[in-house]
Protein backbone atom coordinates (compact mmCIF):
# COMPACT_ATOMS: atom_id res chain seq x y z
CA UNK A 1 0.00 0.00 0.00
CA UNK A 2 1.16 3.51 -0.88
CA UNK A 3 2.71 4.94 2.31
CA UNK A 4 1.12 8.34 1.86
CA UNK A 5 -2.33 6.77 1.79
CA UNK A 6 -1.42 4.43 4.65
CA UNK A 7 -0.54 7.34 6.90
CA UNK A 8 -3.79 9.08 6.07
CA UNK A 9 -6.11 6.20 6.97
CA UNK A 10 -8.37 7.05 9.87
CA UNK A 11 -10.83 4.81 11.67
CA UNK A 12 -13.69 6.74 13.26
CA UNK A 13 -16.49 5.50 15.50
CA UNK A 14 -20.03 5.60 14.13
CA UNK A 15 -21.64 4.88 17.49
CA UNK A 16 -21.11 1.64 19.39
CA UNK A 17 -21.86 -0.82 16.58
CA UNK A 18 -20.06 0.60 13.54
CA UNK A 19 -16.79 2.19 12.43
CA UNK A 20 -15.89 4.23 9.36
CA UNK A 21 -12.51 3.42 7.82
CA UNK A 22 -11.54 6.45 5.74
CA UNK A 23 -8.79 6.09 3.16
CA UNK A 24 -8.80 9.65 1.86
CA UNK A 25 -11.14 12.38 0.71
CA UNK A 26 -10.71 12.37 -3.07
CA UNK A 27 -12.48 10.37 -5.69
CA UNK A 28 -9.59 8.27 -7.01
CA UNK A 29 -9.29 4.71 -8.32
CA UNK A 30 -6.37 3.80 -6.03
CA UNK A 31 -8.23 4.93 -2.91
CA UNK A 32 -11.38 3.13 -4.04
CA UNK A 33 -9.29 -0.02 -4.68
CA UNK A 34 -8.36 0.00 -0.97
CA UNK A 35 -11.98 0.42 0.11
CA UNK A 36 -13.04 -2.55 -2.01
CA UNK A 37 -10.02 -4.63 -0.95
CA UNK A 38 -10.87 -4.27 2.74
CA UNK A 39 -14.56 -4.94 2.02
CA UNK A 40 -13.74 -8.17 0.18
CA UNK A 41 -11.12 -9.17 2.76
CA UNK A 42 -13.62 -8.80 5.63
CA UNK A 43 -16.35 -10.67 3.76
CA UNK A 44 -14.03 -13.55 2.86
CA UNK A 45 -12.63 -13.80 6.36
CA UNK A 46 -15.01 -12.14 8.81
CA UNK A 47 -13.98 -11.52 12.42
CA UNK A 48 -16.31 -12.78 15.15
CA UNK A 49 -19.14 -10.25 15.44
CA UNK A 50 -18.73 -8.81 11.90
CA UNK A 51 -22.10 -8.18 10.25
CA UNK A 52 -21.31 -6.42 6.97
CA UNK A 53 -19.44 -3.50 5.44
CA UNK A 54 -20.59 -0.77 3.08
CA UNK A 55 -18.12 0.58 0.50
CA UNK A 56 -18.30 4.17 -0.66
CA UNK A 57 -15.92 6.36 -2.69
CA UNK A 58 -13.20 6.73 -0.08
CA UNK A 59 -14.46 4.90 2.99
CA UNK A 60 -15.74 1.58 4.26
CA UNK A 61 -18.39 1.53 7.00
CA UNK A 62 -17.94 -1.63 9.05
CA UNK A 63 -21.00 -2.87 11.01
CA UNK A 64 -20.57 -5.29 13.91
CA UNK A 65 -22.38 -6.65 16.97
CA UNK A 66 -20.51 -5.41 20.06
CA UNK A 67 -21.89 -8.23 22.23
CA UNK A 68 -20.11 -10.76 20.01
CA UNK A 69 -16.73 -9.07 20.52
CA UNK A 70 -15.02 -10.81 23.43
CA UNK A 71 -13.76 -8.14 25.84
CA UNK A 72 -10.02 -8.04 26.36
CA UNK A 73 -8.26 -6.35 29.31
CA UNK A 74 -5.74 -4.64 27.03
CA UNK A 75 -8.50 -2.70 25.26
CA UNK A 76 -10.54 0.09 26.87
CA UNK A 77 -13.63 -0.96 24.97
CA UNK A 78 -14.85 -3.67 22.61
CA UNK A 79 -14.74 -1.07 19.87
CA UNK A 80 -11.06 -0.47 20.47
CA UNK A 81 -10.51 -4.17 19.92
CA UNK A 82 -12.37 -4.02 16.59
CA UNK A 83 -10.25 -1.02 15.54
CA UNK A 84 -7.15 -3.06 16.31
CA UNK A 85 -8.49 -6.03 14.31
CA UNK A 86 -9.12 -3.80 11.33
CA UNK A 87 -5.65 -2.22 11.55
CA UNK A 88 -4.11 -5.72 11.46
CA UNK A 89 -6.16 -6.56 8.39
CA UNK A 90 -5.08 -3.38 6.65
CA UNK A 91 -1.42 -4.14 7.32
CA UNK A 92 -1.69 -7.70 6.02
CA UNK A 93 -4.10 -7.41 3.15
CA UNK A 94 -3.25 -7.55 -0.52
CA UNK A 95 -4.60 -4.60 -2.40
CA UNK A 96 -6.73 -5.79 -5.21
CA UNK A 97 -5.68 -4.04 -8.40
CA UNK A 98 -8.97 -4.10 -10.15
CA UNK A 99 -8.88 -5.06 -13.80
CA UNK A 100 -9.58 -2.25 -16.19
CA UNK A 101 -10.52 -4.65 -18.99
CA UNK A 102 -13.86 -6.41 -19.28
CA UNK A 103 -16.09 -3.36 -19.05
CA UNK A 104 -19.84 -3.96 -18.83
CA UNK A 105 -21.55 -2.46 -21.89
CA UNK A 106 -24.74 -0.53 -21.25
CA UNK A 107 -27.05 0.32 -24.18
CA UNK A 108 -28.58 3.80 -23.86
CA UNK A 109 -31.25 5.57 -25.82
CA UNK A 110 -30.08 9.17 -25.60
CA UNK A 111 -32.28 12.28 -25.76
CA UNK A 112 -35.91 12.68 -26.75
CA UNK A 113 -38.36 11.64 -24.08
CA UNK A 114 -35.73 9.24 -22.69
CA UNK A 115 -33.31 12.09 -21.96
CA UNK A 116 -35.32 15.21 -21.06
CA UNK A 117 -32.24 17.13 -19.89
CA UNK A 118 -30.03 16.54 -22.97
CA UNK A 119 -31.17 19.86 -24.41
CA UNK A 120 -30.40 21.64 -21.13
CA UNK A 121 -26.95 20.07 -21.08
CA UNK A 122 -26.42 21.22 -24.66
CA UNK A 123 -27.20 24.80 -23.65
CA UNK A 124 -25.03 24.58 -20.54
CA UNK A 125 -22.02 23.07 -22.34
CA UNK A 126 -22.35 24.84 -25.68
CA UNK A 127 -21.97 21.43 -27.35
CA UNK A 128 -24.36 19.74 -29.76
CA UNK A 129 -26.41 16.81 -28.54
CA UNK A 130 -24.41 14.46 -30.81
CA UNK A 131 -21.17 15.75 -29.32
CA UNK A 132 -22.44 15.20 -25.79
CA UNK A 133 -23.48 11.63 -26.61
CA UNK A 134 -20.05 10.99 -28.13
CA UNK A 135 -18.24 12.33 -25.06
CA UNK A 136 -20.48 10.50 -22.56
CA UNK A 137 -20.15 7.19 -24.37
CA UNK A 138 -16.43 7.25 -25.14
CA UNK A 139 -15.31 7.23 -21.50
CA UNK A 140 -14.65 4.00 -19.63
CA UNK A 141 -16.18 4.67 -16.23
CA UNK A 142 -15.38 3.07 -12.94
CA UNK A 143 -18.22 2.09 -10.60
CA UNK A 144 -17.14 3.60 -7.27
CA UNK A 145 -20.05 2.52 -5.13
CA UNK A 146 -23.66 1.35 -5.10
CA UNK A 147 -26.04 3.36 -2.93
CA UNK A 148 -29.11 5.63 -2.75
CA UNK A 149 -31.39 2.83 -4.00
CA UNK A 150 -30.63 -0.86 -4.65
CA UNK A 151 -28.32 -1.19 -7.64
CA UNK A 152 -27.78 2.57 -8.20
CA UNK A 153 -24.16 2.86 -9.47
CA UNK A 154 -22.10 5.97 -8.79
CA UNK A 155 -19.63 6.14 -11.69
CA UNK A 156 -16.77 8.42 -12.62
CA UNK A 157 -15.26 10.31 -14.10
CA UNK A 158 -17.37 12.35 -16.50
CA UNK A 159 -15.62 14.52 -19.13
CA UNK A 160 -15.36 18.04 -17.66
CA UNK A 161 -17.04 19.57 -20.70
CA UNK A 162 -20.31 17.80 -19.91
CA UNK A 163 -20.03 17.64 -16.11
CA UNK A 164 -23.17 19.70 -15.43
CA UNK A 165 -24.08 20.04 -11.72
CA UNK A 166 -27.23 18.39 -10.41
CA UNK A 167 -30.56 20.24 -10.33
CA UNK A 168 -31.23 22.54 -7.40
CA UNK A 169 -34.75 21.23 -7.15
CA UNK A 170 -34.90 17.48 -7.71
CA UNK A 171 -37.58 15.93 -9.93
CA UNK A 172 -40.32 14.13 -8.02
CA UNK A 173 -40.23 11.20 -10.40
CA UNK A 174 -37.49 9.74 -12.58
CA UNK A 175 -38.17 6.66 -14.74
CA UNK A 176 -36.41 3.40 -14.03
CA UNK A 177 -33.32 2.99 -16.24
CA UNK A 178 -32.70 6.73 -16.53
CA UNK A 179 -29.05 7.64 -17.12
CA UNK A 180 -27.97 10.85 -15.46
CA UNK A 181 -25.09 13.23 -14.81
CA UNK A 182 -24.33 15.12 -11.59
CA UNK A 183 -21.06 17.01 -11.89
CA UNK A 184 -18.25 14.57 -12.58
CA UNK A 185 -20.40 11.55 -11.69
CA UNK A 186 -22.72 9.57 -13.93
CA UNK A 187 -25.24 7.00 -12.81
CA UNK A 188 -28.38 5.03 -13.58
CA UNK A 189 -31.63 5.08 -11.61
CA UNK A 190 -32.59 1.39 -11.22
CA UNK A 191 -36.13 2.03 -9.96
CA UNK A 192 -38.51 4.94 -10.25
CA UNK A 193 -37.64 7.46 -7.57
CA UNK A 194 -37.23 11.20 -7.02
CA UNK A 195 -33.83 12.55 -8.04
CA UNK A 196 -31.75 15.56 -8.93
CA UNK A 197 -29.40 14.27 -11.64
CA UNK A 198 -29.56 15.62 -15.22
CA UNK A 199 -31.24 12.86 -17.25
CA UNK A 200 -29.72 12.38 -20.71
CA UNK A 201 -30.97 8.94 -21.70
CA UNK A 202 -32.43 5.62 -20.63
CA UNK A 203 -31.26 2.04 -20.61
CA UNK A 204 -33.63 -0.94 -20.92
CA UNK A 205 -31.22 -3.06 -18.81
CA UNK A 206 -32.30 -4.11 -15.37
CA UNK A 207 -29.82 -2.97 -12.74
CA UNK A 208 -31.23 -4.86 -9.82
CA UNK A 209 -33.03 -8.20 -9.71
CA UNK A 210 -33.53 -9.61 -6.23
CA UNK A 211 -34.25 -13.09 -7.57
CA UNK A 212 -31.09 -13.36 -9.66
CA UNK A 213 -28.00 -15.20 -8.43
CA UNK A 214 -26.14 -11.88 -8.51
CA UNK A 215 -28.87 -9.32 -7.78
CA UNK A 216 -26.79 -6.30 -8.81
CA UNK A 217 -25.74 -5.80 -12.42
CA UNK A 218 -22.81 -3.63 -11.40
CA UNK A 219 -20.41 -3.79 -8.45
CA UNK A 220 -17.88 -1.37 -7.03
CA UNK A 221 -14.62 -1.50 -8.93
CA UNK A 222 -16.18 -2.65 -12.18
CA UNK A 223 -15.66 -0.79 -15.45
CA UNK A 224 -18.57 0.36 -17.52
CA UNK A 225 -19.16 1.91 -20.96
CA UNK A 226 -22.34 3.28 -22.47
CA UNK A 227 -23.22 2.84 -26.12
CA UNK A 228 -26.02 4.60 -28.01
CA UNK A 229 -28.95 2.64 -29.40
CA UNK A 230 -31.94 3.82 -31.40
CA UNK A 231 -35.40 4.08 -29.80
CA UNK A 232 -36.73 1.19 -31.93
CA UNK A 233 -33.96 -1.04 -30.58
CA UNK A 234 -34.91 -0.25 -26.98
CA UNK A 235 -37.26 -3.24 -26.64
CA UNK A 236 -34.66 -5.73 -27.92
CA UNK A 237 -32.28 -5.07 -25.04
CA UNK A 238 -34.27 -6.49 -22.18
CA UNK A 239 -31.86 -9.24 -21.24
CA UNK A 240 -28.67 -8.83 -19.18
CA UNK A 241 -25.51 -8.12 -21.23
CA UNK A 242 -23.01 -10.91 -22.00
Amino acid at each position, binding site marked *: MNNKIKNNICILPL*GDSALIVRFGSDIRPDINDLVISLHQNLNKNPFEGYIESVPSYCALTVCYDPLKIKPDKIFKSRQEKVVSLIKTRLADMDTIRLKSGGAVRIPVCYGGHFGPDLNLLSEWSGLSQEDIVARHSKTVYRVYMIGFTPGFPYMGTVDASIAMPRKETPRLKIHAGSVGIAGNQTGIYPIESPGGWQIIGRTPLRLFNAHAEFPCLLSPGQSCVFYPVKPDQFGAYTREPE
Partner: protein
Amino acid sequence: MSFVILKAGFLTTVQDTGRHGFQHMGVSVTGAADSLSLRIANILCGNQPNAAGLEMTLTGADIRFEEGSLIALCGADMSGMVNGKPVPLNRPLFMPKGSMLTCGAAKKGCRQYMAVAGGIETRPFLGSRSTDLRLKSGGHEGRALKKGDILKTGGLFEKNLLFINKISALSENFPAWFITPQELGEVHPEGWLRFIPGPEYGWFDEKTRRAFFSKVCMVTNFSDRMGLRLSGERIIPNIKKSLISEGTAMGTVQIPDDGQPIILTADRQTTGGYPKIAQLITADLPAAAQLKPGDRIRFLKDDIQTAEKLLENREKHIKKMETGVMQWLKLI
Protein backbone atom coordinates in the same frame (compact mmCIF):
# COMPACT_ATOMS: atom_id res chain seq x y z
CA MET B 1 -52.55 -21.01 11.44
CA SER B 2 -53.86 -17.87 9.83
CA PHE B 3 -55.23 -14.52 10.87
CA VAL B 4 -57.22 -11.87 9.01
CA ILE B 5 -56.72 -8.11 9.07
CA LEU B 6 -60.09 -6.48 9.74
CA LYS B 7 -58.67 -2.99 10.14
CA ALA B 8 -55.08 -2.16 9.23
CA GLY B 9 -54.36 0.92 11.37
CA PHE B 10 -52.13 3.80 10.33
CA LEU B 11 -49.12 1.78 9.15
CA THR B 12 -48.87 -1.92 9.93
CA THR B 13 -46.09 -3.93 8.31
CA VAL B 14 -44.44 -7.31 8.70
CA GLN B 15 -40.96 -6.84 10.20
CA ASP B 16 -38.21 -9.01 11.61
CA THR B 17 -34.66 -8.20 12.74
CA GLY B 18 -33.79 -6.70 9.34
CA ARG B 19 -32.05 -7.49 6.07
CA HIS B 20 -28.33 -7.78 6.74
CA GLY B 21 -25.52 -8.30 4.26
CA PHE B 22 -26.91 -6.37 1.26
CA GLN B 23 -26.20 -2.74 2.13
CA HIS B 24 -23.25 -2.80 -0.31
CA MET B 25 -25.87 -3.23 -3.05
CA GLY B 26 -27.87 -0.26 -1.78
CA VAL B 27 -30.51 -2.44 -0.08
CA SER B 28 -31.75 -0.84 3.18
CA VAL B 29 -31.72 -2.87 6.37
CA THR B 30 -35.40 -2.14 7.30
CA GLY B 31 -36.68 -4.35 10.17
CA ALA B 32 -38.46 -3.45 13.41
CA ALA B 33 -37.72 0.16 14.41
CA ASP B 34 -37.97 -0.87 18.08
CA SER B 35 -36.12 -4.17 17.83
CA LEU B 36 -36.17 -4.66 21.60
CA SER B 37 -39.97 -4.75 21.79
CA LEU B 38 -40.17 -7.26 18.93
CA ARG B 39 -37.48 -9.38 20.58
CA ILE B 40 -39.33 -9.50 23.89
CA ALA B 41 -42.64 -10.24 22.17
CA ASN B 42 -40.97 -13.18 20.38
CA ILE B 43 -39.50 -14.50 23.65
CA LEU B 44 -42.98 -14.39 25.21
CA CYS B 45 -44.32 -16.60 22.39
CA GLY B 46 -41.42 -19.06 22.51
CA ASN B 47 -40.24 -17.94 19.06
CA GLN B 48 -36.77 -17.87 17.47
CA PRO B 49 -35.21 -14.38 17.69
CA ASN B 50 -35.59 -13.70 13.96
CA ALA B 51 -39.31 -14.58 13.79
CA ALA B 52 -41.31 -11.96 11.92
CA GLY B 53 -44.05 -10.04 13.69
CA LEU B 54 -46.29 -7.06 13.01
CA GLU B 55 -45.20 -3.49 13.62
CA MET B 56 -48.20 -1.21 14.22
CA THR B 57 -47.74 2.57 14.10
CA LEU B 58 -49.74 5.26 15.92
CA THR B 59 -53.06 3.40 15.56
CA GLY B 60 -53.15 -0.37 15.66
CA ALA B 61 -54.84 -3.14 13.73
CA ASP B 62 -57.94 -5.23 14.35
CA ILE B 63 -57.23 -8.91 13.76
CA ARG B 64 -59.33 -12.09 13.78
CA PHE B 65 -57.53 -15.36 14.59
CA GLU B 66 -58.84 -18.25 12.52
CA GLU B 67 -57.32 -20.86 14.86
CA GLY B 68 -56.28 -20.79 18.50
CA SER B 69 -53.01 -18.81 18.65
CA LEU B 70 -50.51 -17.48 21.10
CA ILE B 71 -49.49 -13.83 20.72
CA ALA B 72 -47.71 -11.16 22.70
CA LEU B 73 -47.99 -7.38 22.47
CA CYS B 74 -45.01 -5.16 23.37
CA GLY B 75 -44.14 -1.50 22.88
CA ALA B 76 -46.71 1.30 22.88
CA ASP B 77 -50.02 0.63 24.66
CA MET B 78 -52.77 0.65 22.05
CA SER B 79 -55.53 -0.42 24.46
CA GLY B 80 -55.66 -3.93 23.09
CA MET B 81 -58.97 -5.71 23.63
CA VAL B 82 -60.04 -9.27 22.92
CA ASN B 83 -63.74 -9.76 22.37
CA GLY B 84 -64.36 -6.51 24.25
CA LYS B 85 -62.14 -7.24 27.26
CA PRO B 86 -58.84 -5.38 27.78
CA VAL B 87 -55.68 -7.46 27.40
CA PRO B 88 -52.32 -6.46 28.84
CA LEU B 89 -49.02 -5.80 27.12
CA ASN B 90 -45.84 -7.69 27.92
CA ARG B 91 -47.34 -11.12 28.60
CA PRO B 92 -48.13 -14.10 26.42
CA LEU B 93 -51.83 -14.07 25.42
CA PHE B 94 -53.80 -17.03 24.20
CA MET B 95 -56.27 -16.11 21.47
CA PRO B 96 -59.03 -18.72 21.12
CA LYS B 97 -60.22 -19.78 17.66
CA GLY B 98 -62.31 -17.01 16.07
CA SER B 99 -61.36 -14.38 18.66
CA MET B 100 -60.79 -10.80 17.65
CA LEU B 101 -58.07 -8.42 18.81
CA THR B 102 -58.82 -4.72 18.49
CA CYS B 103 -56.19 -2.01 18.94
CA GLY B 104 -56.69 1.73 19.12
CA ALA B 105 -54.46 4.78 19.23
CA ALA B 106 -51.13 4.64 21.05
CA LYS B 107 -51.59 6.14 24.52
CA LYS B 108 -47.89 6.77 24.97
CA GLY B 109 -45.17 5.93 22.49
CA CYS B 110 -45.57 5.19 18.81
CA ARG B 111 -45.16 1.54 17.83
CA GLN B 112 -46.68 -1.69 19.12
CA TYR B 113 -45.35 -5.08 18.13
CA MET B 114 -47.38 -8.26 17.88
CA ALA B 115 -45.48 -11.53 17.82
CA VAL B 116 -47.37 -14.75 17.13
CA ALA B 117 -46.20 -18.29 17.94
CA GLY B 118 -44.54 -19.76 14.85
CA GLY B 119 -43.69 -16.33 13.47
CA ILE B 120 -45.39 -14.73 10.47
CA GLU B 121 -44.67 -16.80 7.40
CA THR B 122 -44.12 -14.68 4.31
CA ARG B 123 -41.73 -15.35 1.43
CA PRO B 124 -38.29 -14.11 2.52
CA PHE B 125 -36.67 -11.46 0.35
CA LEU B 126 -32.87 -11.58 0.41
CA GLY B 127 -33.00 -13.65 3.59
CA SER B 128 -35.38 -11.45 5.59
CA ARG B 129 -39.14 -11.06 6.03
CA SER B 130 -38.92 -7.34 6.77
CA THR B 131 -40.97 -5.08 4.50
CA ASP B 132 -39.02 -2.70 2.24
CA LEU B 133 -41.67 -0.10 1.43
CA ARG B 134 -39.48 1.81 -1.05
CA LEU B 135 -38.46 -1.28 -2.97
CA LYS B 136 -41.99 -2.76 -2.60
CA SER B 137 -40.45 -6.07 -1.55
CA GLY B 138 -40.39 -8.36 1.42
CA GLY B 139 -43.04 -8.62 4.14
CA HIS B 140 -46.56 -9.16 2.83
CA GLU B 141 -46.51 -8.22 -0.87
CA GLY B 142 -43.95 -5.51 -0.13
CA ARG B 143 -46.52 -3.12 1.31
CA ALA B 144 -48.40 -1.94 4.36
CA LEU B 145 -51.18 -4.31 5.41
CA LYS B 146 -54.77 -3.52 4.48
CA LYS B 147 -58.26 -4.76 5.36
CA GLY B 148 -58.85 -8.26 4.09
CA ASP B 149 -55.21 -9.40 4.13
CA ILE B 150 -54.77 -12.97 5.35
CA LEU B 151 -51.43 -13.91 6.91
CA LYS B 152 -50.11 -17.32 7.92
CA THR B 153 -47.82 -18.41 10.71
CA GLY B 154 -44.97 -20.90 10.52
CA GLY B 155 -44.61 -24.29 12.17
CA LEU B 156 -44.53 -24.50 15.97
CA PHE B 157 -41.47 -25.57 17.92
CA GLU B 158 -41.52 -27.37 21.24
CA LYS B 159 -41.12 -24.09 23.11
CA ASN B 160 -44.15 -22.62 21.36
CA LEU B 161 -46.23 -25.64 22.37
CA LEU B 162 -45.11 -25.40 26.00
CA PHE B 163 -46.32 -21.80 26.07
CA ILE B 164 -49.60 -22.57 24.31
CA ASN B 165 -50.46 -25.50 26.55
CA LYS B 166 -49.74 -23.59 29.70
CA ILE B 167 -51.31 -20.24 28.78
CA SER B 168 -54.46 -21.64 27.18
CA ALA B 169 -55.17 -23.49 30.41
CA LEU B 170 -55.26 -20.27 32.44
CA SER B 171 -58.67 -18.82 33.19
CA GLU B 172 -57.82 -15.37 31.82
CA ASN B 173 -55.77 -16.73 28.87
CA PHE B 174 -52.77 -14.80 30.17
CA PRO B 175 -50.53 -15.13 33.23
CA ALA B 176 -50.52 -12.84 36.25
CA TRP B 177 -46.83 -12.04 35.78
CA PHE B 178 -45.51 -9.54 33.26
CA ILE B 179 -42.15 -8.22 32.18
CA THR B 180 -41.14 -4.55 32.23
CA PRO B 181 -39.32 -3.51 29.05
CA GLN B 182 -38.24 -0.21 30.63
CA GLU B 183 -36.19 -2.04 33.24
CA LEU B 184 -34.82 -4.53 30.72
CA GLY B 185 -33.89 -1.85 28.25
CA GLU B 186 -31.80 0.41 30.49
CA VAL B 187 -33.51 3.54 29.16
CA HIS B 188 -32.53 6.95 30.45
CA PRO B 189 -34.74 7.82 33.46
CA GLU B 190 -35.79 11.14 31.91
CA GLY B 191 -36.04 9.74 28.38
CA TRP B 192 -33.03 11.61 26.99
CA LEU B 193 -31.34 10.16 23.93
CA ARG B 194 -27.69 9.38 24.56
CA PHE B 195 -25.20 9.78 21.74
CA ILE B 196 -21.57 9.37 20.87
CA PRO B 197 -20.01 12.21 18.83
CA GLY B 198 -20.17 11.46 15.10
CA PRO B 199 -17.36 11.61 12.52
CA GLU B 200 -18.16 15.25 11.68
CA TYR B 201 -18.66 16.42 15.29
CA GLY B 202 -15.54 18.57 14.80
CA TRP B 203 -17.24 20.48 11.96
CA PHE B 204 -19.41 22.21 14.56
CA ASP B 205 -18.05 24.84 16.95
CA GLU B 206 -18.44 24.62 20.72
CA LYS B 207 -21.44 26.97 20.83
CA THR B 208 -23.29 24.96 18.17
CA ARG B 209 -22.48 21.67 19.86
CA ARG B 210 -23.91 22.98 23.10
CA ALA B 211 -27.05 24.06 21.29
CA PHE B 212 -27.31 20.53 19.95
CA PHE B 213 -27.15 18.78 23.27
CA SER B 214 -28.75 21.19 25.67
CA LYS B 215 -31.75 22.53 23.79
CA VAL B 216 -34.99 20.66 23.49
CA CYS B 217 -36.17 19.86 20.00
CA MET B 218 -39.42 18.54 18.67
CA VAL B 219 -40.26 15.57 16.49
CA THR B 220 -42.04 16.87 13.39
CA ASN B 221 -44.85 15.40 11.27
CA PHE B 222 -42.33 14.64 8.54
CA SER B 223 -40.96 11.74 10.54
CA ASP B 224 -41.33 8.21 9.22
CA ARG B 225 -39.50 4.88 9.07
CA MET B 226 -36.64 6.52 7.17
CA GLY B 227 -35.93 9.02 9.88
CA LEU B 228 -37.09 11.26 12.68
CA ARG B 229 -37.07 14.84 11.42
CA LEU B 230 -36.56 17.26 14.27
CA SER B 231 -37.12 20.97 14.62
CA GLY B 232 -35.35 23.27 17.02
CA GLU B 233 -32.45 25.66 17.03
CA ARG B 234 -30.64 25.46 13.67
CA ILE B 235 -27.40 23.51 13.82
CA ILE B 236 -24.99 24.93 11.25
CA PRO B 237 -21.47 23.56 10.72
CA ASN B 238 -18.43 25.82 10.71
CA ILE B 239 -16.87 23.90 7.88
CA LYS B 240 -18.52 24.62 4.56
CA LYS B 241 -17.47 21.75 2.36
CA SER B 242 -19.22 18.79 0.81
CA LEU B 243 -18.91 15.45 2.39
CA ILE B 244 -18.40 12.61 -0.06
CA SER B 245 -21.17 10.01 0.45
CA GLU B 246 -20.47 7.33 3.07
CA GLY B 247 -22.31 4.50 4.75
CA THR B 248 -24.63 5.47 7.61
CA ALA B 249 -26.06 3.49 10.52
CA MET B 250 -29.29 3.18 12.48
CA GLY B 251 -29.39 6.19 14.80
CA THR B 252 -27.00 8.38 12.79
CA VAL B 253 -27.88 12.05 13.38
CA GLN B 254 -27.38 13.95 10.11
CA ILE B 255 -27.42 17.70 9.66
CA PRO B 256 -28.88 18.62 6.25
CA ASP B 257 -28.65 22.08 4.66
CA ASP B 258 -31.52 23.52 6.70
CA GLY B 259 -29.76 22.80 10.00
CA GLN B 260 -32.57 20.61 11.35
CA PRO B 261 -31.28 17.24 12.58
CA ILE B 262 -32.55 13.95 11.17
CA ILE B 263 -32.14 10.74 13.17
CA LEU B 264 -31.84 7.95 10.60
CA THR B 265 -33.87 4.86 11.38
CA ALA B 266 -34.82 1.47 9.94
CA ASP B 267 -35.59 2.34 6.30
CA ARG B 268 -32.72 4.82 5.87
CA GLN B 269 -30.75 4.84 2.63
CA THR B 270 -27.49 2.97 2.86
CA THR B 271 -25.28 5.98 2.16
CA GLY B 272 -25.51 9.71 2.78
CA GLY B 273 -23.58 12.89 2.12
CA TYR B 274 -24.68 15.08 5.03
CA PRO B 275 -22.41 15.71 8.04
CA LYS B 276 -22.95 13.21 10.85
CA ILE B 277 -22.83 15.17 14.11
CA ALA B 278 -23.76 12.29 16.37
CA GLN B 279 -24.68 8.65 16.59
CA LEU B 280 -27.33 7.41 19.04
CA ILE B 281 -26.18 4.59 21.26
CA THR B 282 -27.74 1.24 20.38
CA ALA B 283 -29.41 0.98 23.81
CA ASP B 284 -31.44 4.12 23.02
CA LEU B 285 -32.65 3.08 19.57
CA PRO B 286 -35.83 1.50 21.01
CA ALA B 287 -36.68 4.76 22.82
CA ALA B 288 -36.13 6.72 19.60
CA ALA B 289 -38.48 4.34 17.78
CA GLN B 290 -41.23 5.17 20.28
CA LEU B 291 -41.13 8.90 19.54
CA LYS B 292 -44.00 10.42 17.60
CA PRO B 293 -44.73 13.85 16.09
CA GLY B 294 -45.05 16.46 18.82
CA ASP B 295 -42.74 14.68 21.26
CA ARG B 296 -39.89 16.72 22.71
CA ILE B 297 -36.42 15.28 23.07
CA ARG B 298 -32.98 16.16 24.34
CA PHE B 299 -29.63 14.69 23.49
CA LEU B 300 -27.11 13.71 26.12
CA LYS B 301 -23.44 13.21 25.27
CA ASP B 302 -22.04 9.89 26.36
CA ASP B 303 -19.08 7.62 25.63
CA ILE B 304 -18.35 4.24 24.13
CA GLN B 305 -17.67 2.52 27.44
CA THR B 306 -21.07 3.52 28.87
CA ALA B 307 -22.79 2.59 25.61
CA GLU B 308 -21.26 -0.89 25.66
CA LYS B 309 -21.95 -1.35 29.38
CA LEU B 310 -25.65 -0.54 28.84
CA LEU B 311 -25.88 -3.16 26.11
CA GLU B 312 -24.17 -5.75 28.31
CA ASN B 313 -26.55 -5.00 31.19
CA ARG B 314 -29.55 -5.16 28.90
CA GLU B 315 -28.43 -8.55 27.60
CA LYS B 316 -28.04 -9.83 31.16
CA HIS B 317 -31.55 -8.65 32.09
CA ILE B 318 -33.05 -10.30 29.00
CA LYS B 319 -31.26 -13.62 29.60
CA LYS B 320 -32.42 -13.57 33.24
CA MET B 321 -35.98 -12.87 32.12
CA GLU B 322 -35.87 -15.72 29.61
CA THR B 323 -34.65 -18.11 32.29
CA GLY B 324 -37.40 -16.97 34.66
CA VAL B 325 -40.09 -17.49 32.05
CA MET B 326 -38.78 -20.95 31.14
CA GLN B 327 -38.76 -21.96 34.78
CA TRP B 328 -42.36 -20.86 35.17
CA LEU B 329 -43.34 -22.79 32.02
CA LYS B 330 -41.91 -26.03 33.33
CA LEU B 331 -43.67 -25.79 36.69
CA ILE B 332 -46.73 -27.93 36.93
